[in-house]
């Protein structure tokens, strides 16, 4: 369960402060599929980064499974990201000159104990996104859709509770977008919590709940989007 209380975030550029998030309160249950929407600059990526413990708010609290994350030190936060959260970014963020398999293995390097069956797990993760025949391909040899699927496999390798995806289809064509959304649907059915940041209504429709951000606040909390479509 993700509990967000009175989160505020202000960036200061020069001497001008910009309020990006202005008191966000939110509860996301385990196994939910949530889409965060909003126009550019409304703070949806900032909110996602805060939920993913990549960024800290100026004010407020975040609890992941009843753990107050701001009471954790930097090492514990790293460990939490490693075990509980899988990230999928718009720009894929795969390591260049590195094979798909090695990219997927990356989070395992930072686990407390590197598993003996790491390669098997990575291959299984790649197979789950339909890339079992691309394990030894380098990042520059894969298409955009394939790169994003490698990124999803990487996010899944540690079997995290939450998948955080920031505009995961932003750089993809419609066919690849459908493939990625199908994977998210399947992961949701498997019981994972999925939070997708998007400005695309078609992507958001796949979620159970749509949060509309406007001027740093949740303007709309639609809980019936998936059933409606």
């Amino acid at each position, binding site marked *: 369960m993700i509990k967000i209380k009175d989160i505020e975030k202000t960036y200061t550029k020069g001497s001008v402060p910009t309020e990006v998030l202005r008191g966000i309160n939110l509860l996301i249950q385990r196994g939910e599929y949530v889409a965060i929407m909003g126009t550019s600059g409304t703070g949806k990526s900032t909110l996602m*980064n805060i939920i*993913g413990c*990549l*960024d800290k708010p100026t004010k407020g609290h975040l609890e992941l499974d009843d753990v107050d994350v701001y009471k954790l030190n*930097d*090492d514990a936060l*790293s*460990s939490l*990201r*490693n*075990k509980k959260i899988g*990230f999928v*970014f718009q720009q894929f*963020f795969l*390591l*260049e*000159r*590195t094979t798909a398999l*090695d990219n997927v293995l*990356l*989070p395992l*390097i*930072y*686990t407390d104990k*590197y598993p003996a069956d790491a390669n098997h797990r990575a291959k299984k993760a790649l197979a789950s996104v339909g890339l079992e025949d691309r394990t030894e391909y380098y990042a520059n040899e894969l298409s955009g859709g394939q790169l994003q699927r490698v990124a999803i496999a*990487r996010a899944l390798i*540690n079997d995290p509770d939450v998948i955080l995806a920031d505009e995961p289809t932003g750089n993809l064509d419609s066919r690849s977008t459908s493939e990625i959304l199908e994977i998210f649907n399947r992961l949701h059915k498997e019981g994972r919590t999925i939070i997708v940041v998007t400005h695309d209504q078609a992507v958001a429709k796949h979620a159970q709940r749509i949060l509309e951000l406007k001027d740093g606040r949740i303007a709309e909390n639609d809980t019936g989007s998936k059933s409606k479509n």
Partner: protein
Amino acid sequence: MKVSKAITLSCKILTAHRLRTALCVSSMAIGVTAVVVMVSMGRGAQKLVLDMIHDMGTNLIVVNAGHVTLVGGRERQSAIVTTLRPSDADAIQDYCTSVVEVAPETSRKMNVQWESENLTTEIVGVTPSAFRIRNIEIEMGRGFDSVENESGQRVAIVGTVIVEKLFNGEDPVGHRIRIGSAPFEVAGVMKAKGVDANGVDRDDRILIPIKTAMHRLVRTTFIQKIHIQVTNSKQLELAETEIRELLHERHRLQDKPDDFTIQNQATLIQTERESARILTLLVGSVAAISFIVGGIGILAVMLTACRERRREIGLRRAVGARRRDIRTQFMLESLIIAGLGGFFGAILGILFTFFTSRLGGWYTIQSWDITGAGLILSTVIGMVFGIYPATKASTLEPIEALRTE
């Protein structure tokens, strides 16, 4: 993150950036090679000079007529001084308790002729004791004895350069040559000794009995130097004092300055060793600068890597890398680069030293201690110069790193 995993990871990253890694490794390797080669050459030069001094003989004191000064590291006699005589050598032998043997010497450049060949070379008048004191060995034929010296026999012992130049490499023993206008019989050939510390070729000379030289050839009553062998190296200082006092008295110098110069082999060795040590230190210091340049190369490459790989750092942090994991990874990369640089530099240094000696004709000494030190120092330099980029990389906030354009 396990160290073995971190090493594998760093190796993969370095392999992925082959050109950058190779350039950085070579900058460090050049530094290590320079240190190893320069010190090996410096030490070679030091040994060469010390060997030359030892080759003069052991526990030796040399008394030169007049003042001998060092010009460009080589001896120069200021003027012809006529005060040093054979009787001084006899007195030293008789009155100085720590002296074993003396060998007076006189020399002059003269024309030498054999059949139609002729050349100008150093004619050195010596006593038979010179062969023992100065380690002069006979390769062919024989030397001459005190009877031949006392009776002023016209016998000559020639150097190997004379054999080559005058006799075209033929065996000269038994042949008659002319030194100036006087006929001499070649009794023997000296074993080659090469160039001495003063740059004089010891094989381009002819030894004849000193009495013959003084009475039948150059017709002088004075000599240029006396080589004196002392019982042991501890007696060198005492002997020098005894000789100085004796000659001072014999030459009736009273308050006047010495008309001779005494060179003590121990002092000479110490001076040469010190100057060679300074030379090695100087050369080593210059080479060490290139070592530091290699370290700065690592610093530059790792800082560039830190800037170029901000997103990678951000990603690693996002998927669970702790600050110390990033720091360890960057430190290991610097260490591997520096270690490889040190390793290749050491091998290149050994090879260069070998080929400089073989092909270039330089006298070198493989400096294994410096090679080992270079290897260790390169790793230390890698570590020191890697600290800043590693710290910089590890302190990047994940979100800041991921936002890098």
